[in-house]
């Protein structure tokens, strides 16, 4: 009788230990995603240059690196632009409102250039592309929340002719 109880308890203990180990293992695997990887991945506010060609890419806070989603979109844009060689575009770089105004102007320019560099290195002639930064002056979503801010950190491609 006692032996039974004891073995049950030890069994329970052993099981919980295993579970605990699993839990911690899970925790360690999630540390690779840092807080600053908060680029918007949704479809709200997104317009289209043509069927299946989104007009914008999004960035993480304070960053101008292209995410994999961004490169996918830009690749589509490059293909589209190469197929329509008379089209010219302007790339508008933007920042969210959670930063100082002047720095955000510079950050917007950096984001626009990031997109431009991708396009030019994928066959689009540089003289077809103009670049402008609006800093935080023209938000796509005027709300003051994390979602809106992520939707505002963007480079938008606009046809100029």
């Amino acid at each position, binding site marked *: 009788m006692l032996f039974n109880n004891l073995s049950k308890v030890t069994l329970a203990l052993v099981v919980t230990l295993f579970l605990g180990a699993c839990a911690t293992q899970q925790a360690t695997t999630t540390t690779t995603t840092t807080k600053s990887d908060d680029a918007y991945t949704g479809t709200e506010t997104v317009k289209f240059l043509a069927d299946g060609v989104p007009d914008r890419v999004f960035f993480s806070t304070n960053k101008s690196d292209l995410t994999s989603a961004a490169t996918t979109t830009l690749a589509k844009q490059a293909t589209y632009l190469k197929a329509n060689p008379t089209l010219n575009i302007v790339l508008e770089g933007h920042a969210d409102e*959670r930063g*100082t105004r002047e*720095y955000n102007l510079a950050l917007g320019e*950096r984001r626009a250039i990031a997109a431009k560099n991708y396009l030019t290195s994928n066959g689009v002639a540089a003289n077809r592309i103009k670049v*402008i*930064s609006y800093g935080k*002056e023209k938000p796509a979503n005027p709300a003051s929340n994390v979602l809106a801010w992520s939707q505002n950190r963007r480079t938008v491609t606009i046809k100029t002719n």
Partner: protein
Amino acid sequence: MKYKIFTIFILFFILTSKSFALVSVDITRGNLDPLPTAISDFYLDPKLGDNIKKLQLESKIPELIQNNLSRSGLFFALEKKSFIQRPEPAHNKPRFEDWIFIKTQVLVTGKISLEKEDRLRVEFKLWDVVSATELSALAFYTTPDNWRRVSHMISDKIYERLTGEKGYFDSRIIYVSETGNKVDKKKRLAVMDQDGYGVKYLTLGNELVLTPRFSPTSQHVTYMSYFRNLPRVYLLNIETGIQDLVGDFPGMTFAPRFSPDGKKIIMSFAQEGNSDIYTMDIKTRVVEKLTDHPSIDTSPSYSPDGSYITFNSDRSGFQQIYTMKSDGTNIKRISFGEGLYGTPVWSPRGDLIAFTKLYRNKFYIGVMRSDGSGERLLTENYYQEAPSWAPNGRVLIFYRETPSDSSGRGGGAKLWSIDLTGYNERLILTPTDASDPSWSGLLSGK
């Protein structure tokens, strides 16, 4: 004879070996309340013509002085209705007991009389009623319509005499007036007296305008505009309204300021994702590149003697504050706290650099010494930035925004000011929403 010598000898000894101990008491506390001040109506010379009398300067000038001094937070102006003595006798010879009775410590009196045909003489006196002395007496000559400037200059004199610091009331503020929806705001340059009077719009609002700054003489403004959809730095003459493009840059220029001698404009120029700091001599148009780094270098601000520049750079990976010599050498990082630092601006006194800090999703306005030590945060808010110094280096003006909802409602921007000590945080009233404020120097030039 011998006894005389004897007593003299003894007395001599007595007098020299006297031991005297004066009780010494340390007074190390007091109160930091604003100084009780009485500003009497001025005495208006009855010989003045009706056209002057109808201006009611005898009460308007003291009212302006009172508003200035009260707003500074350092003076407590007493109610006029408690005053016992009338303006004329008070100005000639105050009956100090009358003023002590109403619990003031200092008193301002004045007299307005005719100097020549169309010129007024405005005289004021500052009294210490407790010690029954006259602290200051000055006269200004001016045309009647300039009475506001005279009031501000008198306010500065009083302020200086009682605090030891230069005043800041004879100055103007330039800012960006904002109207319309957040998604597509209409922005115009606006200029006003430091007390909010006399707002004048300098641009029409057809294109975005940002970050305007006064020249040292307050005659010109430099700012960034999206005129013709090209974001560039411009120079505007306030009197004539003429706008000139600054330089001929093949890309976005922004964040402009004047050098303390007014000869150059310093700004950022962005190309290929890199923003560096440049200067351009206004007359010769010679352009000089000061920073050369793939990072973002922006928000440059000169020290008051023009020998150093403070600026914002993310070369460390995040926005921080740096200083360098005005030739671009000797770059030193001075901000090391947690968070992001931006918009550094050097005090006209040369002792401090004010800045914006973003930490844990909150914005702070703070100051630090030019070597980065002594960081002090003055105020915290959901969103605020871009401090600018009053000419005496004691007060900061900046702007705040409130959060907005999904339709863009809410998000209004307003101008605020705060004293260097963290006291006296005040809203500055403007007819529209306002952002990007910048304070001029003293209009009299000193």
